[in-house]
């Protein structure tokens, strides 16, 4: 079960290929991008730098 959860999260995260992109998968992917875009817009602006940038 954990392996399936990991696989699903990696798919959501773009770490795994989506495979054959059918019509319904395209819609799901588009919706997922919208959700991510919304989350980014809602939380952006705290202006913290990436920790590793000036290492």
């Amino acid at each position: 079960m954990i392996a399936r959860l990991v696989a699903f999260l990696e798919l959501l995260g773009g770490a795994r290929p989506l495979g054959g992109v059918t019509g319904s998968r395209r819609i799901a992917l588009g919706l997922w991008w919208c959700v991510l875009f919304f989350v980014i817009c809602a939380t952006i602006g705290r202006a913290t730098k990436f920790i590793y940038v000036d290492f």
Partner: protein
Amino acid sequence: MIFNELSYFALFLLPAVVLFHTVPSRTRPWVIGFFGAAFFVYYGYLHFGGLWGALCVLLFVWEMVTSRLYRPGSRWCLFGIAQAVAILLVFKYLTFAVGSWNDLAATLHLPPLGAAKRWLLHLGVSFFTFEFIHFAADTYWGKLERPPVGEYAAFILFFPTMVAGPIKRFQDFGPKLKTARFDPALASQGITRILVGLAKKHAIADTFALWAGRLNGPQLYTAHAHQIVAWIFAYGMQIYFDFSAYSDIAIGSGYLFGLTIPENFNWPYGSQNIAEFWRRWHISLSSWIRDYVYVPLGGSRLGRSRTAINLILAFTISGLWHGAAYNFIAWGLWHGLLLVSYRRCCESFPRLSARMPKPVAVGLTFVAVNFGWAFFSMDIGRVVVAFSRIIRLA
């Protein structure tokens, strides 16, 4: 900064990707080289020391020139390694070294060196110097054939990975550069990866930062033990989501070029022991330290004691690489000692480590790694305060 700036996407990533897939394949490395140099100049000027920071792009030009002289077994390769180390020493460690000497001199009544000129740490120095060293060392060992100069320029100036990795290897990157093509499936995967990276950074890492930031605030001196522990664990989550987000954006950007970049993380907090953790956390750095520090020192070939010394040395160097300060050295030592202890435990009690339930092993590793983040997130004085309060109040 950089990956969460609109300018990264508008001025560099999108134009570079479009041009890369438009021009003939022999010109592609130069497209990456051009945009990489422009990226370095732009952000160097903006965030890392103005004109001086921007002019440091000449280091790449110099590296491209000297790399032409590299041959298997040649002294020029050793010169290349030495100059990369010198760049690191001057830009990153000189001030720290002089300051440390002056502290020691004051204690032992020795003559001080005077104030060191504070060199500005320039963009991505820790990462691109490691790629320089890899190229020179692998050419010296005969593992690499000299590529066309454009391909090497694209390798060292590939801007998505220039600032904070993943640290690439030319053997992996060079052939992919030749065969890269626009792949809609890979590109959509790349967009997902970039969006997920940005969401991880802004929604998750920055939220954990609200708690973790208290480790460096006045609250540390009045906090309860459980609060300090919670903040340290919050920092553990912050750094994971922050750095994996950065790697996601770098890797996703690479996908848009049609290039697959090595992964940097593989669910590290699910590791069952510290050795496994280092195979799954900042993978490109761990493998670099293994190949260019640990193995040349003798690795595990010279007996138990020497292996332990090599491990501790390699991790101390890794710690120092993360920052020119005592707390990073302490962090490296912490991990070196954990790894040596783990190996000794496995040798002395093989059944125990084999029979330990997985959740217990994962939990123990998670706790050990997270307590190590205390050294990473605070200077030594604060670490002492934090641990003494935890021990006293607990």
